């Protein structure tokens, strides 16, 4: 199907704009801060066969989950119950395509003159779909059966009308029926916008031009990525990322996500077959989530000027996995918290192997070290200011530090490298909506990985229950033991995740005295720390403190310009001690100047210690 280049460009950008509008519709309709503050959602537009040709810059892994669900609907339900104009299908099943059960998706066919010409889909991270544990993490589960409720594809909208029987069934087991129902409406609204806008495009430009654009967009993006790969040197790059999880033995096992990336000519293979066997539940992911995880890194690292067309880009490489492993689990392994565990680990491994390939290609201008490789999250539930049951997710950790670039520092509290439009919540909004009071939220000193270029500083925050009751809190991250935001080319890793509760503190006594504590260590009380995933409670005087990962560094810290180190110290991003110990930069205080002579001596001393520390001279 031929299309003239000008019409192609006009239509391509119009379709991207339509996709943006469908995503923004979710944000406008959903009442959940997870959607309207953090933008933990996405939408995509697909061909009649369910191949995605555009996806929003929100949570990019949905570029694969939404099409997987759509293809399943086409394959399984075209005959019975049938697919008619105005229908929509709801699904949150990981074995159909959802990354985890709380990523709930609605897909819809787009008809034109009685024939399906496209599909649209929208996914929102919802707070609770039911199950033994509130929220997204099936704490203590040993299989999918003990996790969050699974809904395989069902026709939720029939010929334009929401099916009340299905909706009632869907919301019947959640603890938050109004919220789940409104999030469902957000997805339906998004698909309605997609249908209307695509109809406008076809009315204006004709079906042939519309379909020609999709076909050309897919083939062009594949061609351009293959052409880029040809320019890069061949080689094999490897990375391993580690997770902690208690599979039920009472011990925190170390799980490894292992990637070997092979590049030859214009072909690229991401081989995860060396990854550890699946866990019983929670931290596994299914195959569509894995391919989505890889795409999350491929877009920013390889496709900076190539259309973000998932189907075309994915045709240029292969993802290999072993069924029964953590990244390609076999039913009925649970997947309730895949997104920030195995999925994140696979994205991190992909990004680091790609970074090293880019260096080999001489493209340090496109390199990024690891960015907030693990996200530190709290789901919590209880009674709000009005004694009404509430539940939400605190996603401040979406503001972790970005990895250092190959030519410049990482962005402090820059957030996700892979889902660039995703944000983190406004403190005042969270305080207004939920019974929490923040003591602080700020950038954390010494948290970015050291390097010639420093990894972005991360975010830290502390809060206390306020005017309500928090009956349950699930703290979860992937790797509380290891810094997985690692550096590149000699750059150091970032800080690790940190979260603890100061029990029975004197925080309220201090409030009464007019003091707002700025450090948790100032408070009286006893500290309780937690493994990767833990469920606990919060008393009125318990203070929660959390720090997320920063970005990894790039290059040897001793090669960093002392003036930049001084600037970091002045901005409280690096401490004086750290400047001296790791960067070898001596800063005169209180004048706050670099002592260049002493800096030279210190750097020589550190180099000498490196030889000594390594056990001698080769």
């Amino acid at each position: 199907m031929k299309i003239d280049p000008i019409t192609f460009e006009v239509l391509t950008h119009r379709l991207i704009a339509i996709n943006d509008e469908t995503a923004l519709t979710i944000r406008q309709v959903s009442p959940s801060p997870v959607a309207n503050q953090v933008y933990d959602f996405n939408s995509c537009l697909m061909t009649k066969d369910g191949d995605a040709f555009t996806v929003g810059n929100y949570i990019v892994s949905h570029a694969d989950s939404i099409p997987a669900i759509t293809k399943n609907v086409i394959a399984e339900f075209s005959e019975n119950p049938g697919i008619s104009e105005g229908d929509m299908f709801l699904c949150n099943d990981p074995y159909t395509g959802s990354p985890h059960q709380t990523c709930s998706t609605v897909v819809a066919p787009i008809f034109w003159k009685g024939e399906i010409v496209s599909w649209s889909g929208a996914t929102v991270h919802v707070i609770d779909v039911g199950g033994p544990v509130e929220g997204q993490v099936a704490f203590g589960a040993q299989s999918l059966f003990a996790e969050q409720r699974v809904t395989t594809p069902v026709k939720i909208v029939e010929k334009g009308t929401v099916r009340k029987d299905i909706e009632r069934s869907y919301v019947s087991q959640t603890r938050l029926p109004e919220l789940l129902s409104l999030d469902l409406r957000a997805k339906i609204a998004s698909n309605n916008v997609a249908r209307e806008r695509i109809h406008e495009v076809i009315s204006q430009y004709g079906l042939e031009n519309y379909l020609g654009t999709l076909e050309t967009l897919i083939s062009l993006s594949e061609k351009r990525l293959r052409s880029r790969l040809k320019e890069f040197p061949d080689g094999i790059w490897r990375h391993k990322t580690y997770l902690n999880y208690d599979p039920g033995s009472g011990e925190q096992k170390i799980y490894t996500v292992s990637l070997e990336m092979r590049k030859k000519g214009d072909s690229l293979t991401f081989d995860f077959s060396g990854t550890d066997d699946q866990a019983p539940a929670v931290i596994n992911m299914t195959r569509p989530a894995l391919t989505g995880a890889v795409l999350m890194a491929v877009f920013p690292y390889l496709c900076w000027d190539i259309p973000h067309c998932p189907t075309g880009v994915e045709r240029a490489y292969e993802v290999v996995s072993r069924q029964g492993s953590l990244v390609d689990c076999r039913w009925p392994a649970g997947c309730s918290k895949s997104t920030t565990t195995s999925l994140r680990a696979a994205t991190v491994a992909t990004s680091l192997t790609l970074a090293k390939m880019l260096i080999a290609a001489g493209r340090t201008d496109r390199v990024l070290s690891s960015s907030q490789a693990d996200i530190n999250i709290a789901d919590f539930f209880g009674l709000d200011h009005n004694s009404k049951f509430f539940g939400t997710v605190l996603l401040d950790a979406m503001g972790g530090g970005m990895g250092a670039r190959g030519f410049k520092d990482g962005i402090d509290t820059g957030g996700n490298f892979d889902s660039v439009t995703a944000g983190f919540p406004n403190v005042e909004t969270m305080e207004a909506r939920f019974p929490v009071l923040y003591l602080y939220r700020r950038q954390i000193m010494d948290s970015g990985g050291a390097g010639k270029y420093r990894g972005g500083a991360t975010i830290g925050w502390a809060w206390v229950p306020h005017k309500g009751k928090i009956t349950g809190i699930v703290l979860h991250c992937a790797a509380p033991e290891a810094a997985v935001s690692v550096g590149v080319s000699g750059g150091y890793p970032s800080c690790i995740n940190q979260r603890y509760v100061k029990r029975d503190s004197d925080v309220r006594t201090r409030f009464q005295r007019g003091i707002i504590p700025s450090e948790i260590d100032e408070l009286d009380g006893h500290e309780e720390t937690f493994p990767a995933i833990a469920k606990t409670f919060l008393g009125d005087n318990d203070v929660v403190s959390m720090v997320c990962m920063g970005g990894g560094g790039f290059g040897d810290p001793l090669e960093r310009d002392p003036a930049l180190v001084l600037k970091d110290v002045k901005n409280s991003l690096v401490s004086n001690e750290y400047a001296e110990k790791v960067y070898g930069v001596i800063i005169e205080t209180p004048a706050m100047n670099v002592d260049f002579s002493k800096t030279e001596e210190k750097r020589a001393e550190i180099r000498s210690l490196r030889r000594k520390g390594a056990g001698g001279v080769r």
Partner: protein
Amino acid sequence: MIINTQLEIVLEGGKEVVRCKCGRVLCSGNENYKLFALRQEGPFSMAGPEKIFSGKYKGEERFVFRLFFCPGCLTVLECEVAPKGSQILRDYEPIPSPESQKIESTAKDRSPSPQVKSSG
């Protein structure tokens, strides 16, 4: 062939070798350069941010921080965070070109550096 900002594989004396920017040759082109680098292994606190690590976590019991230095200029070549006792990751491996396959590996003539000292 560039391995990272410090190292590249070059032809020297008719053989492919891994060479640092400083001119120091670490090993033959088909070997894991990390095994021929100076290596320091220890707790996370070697990476610096003690305030964050602050001994609150068990990570220091099970994970290590590894630094690999050029034996010539002592520049950090690469870092690793890995479980204690785990194998050193070969993060890059060339795909042999038809030409390089003809070149005899020097691997048999040289042994990896055993120089490791645990810090902390």
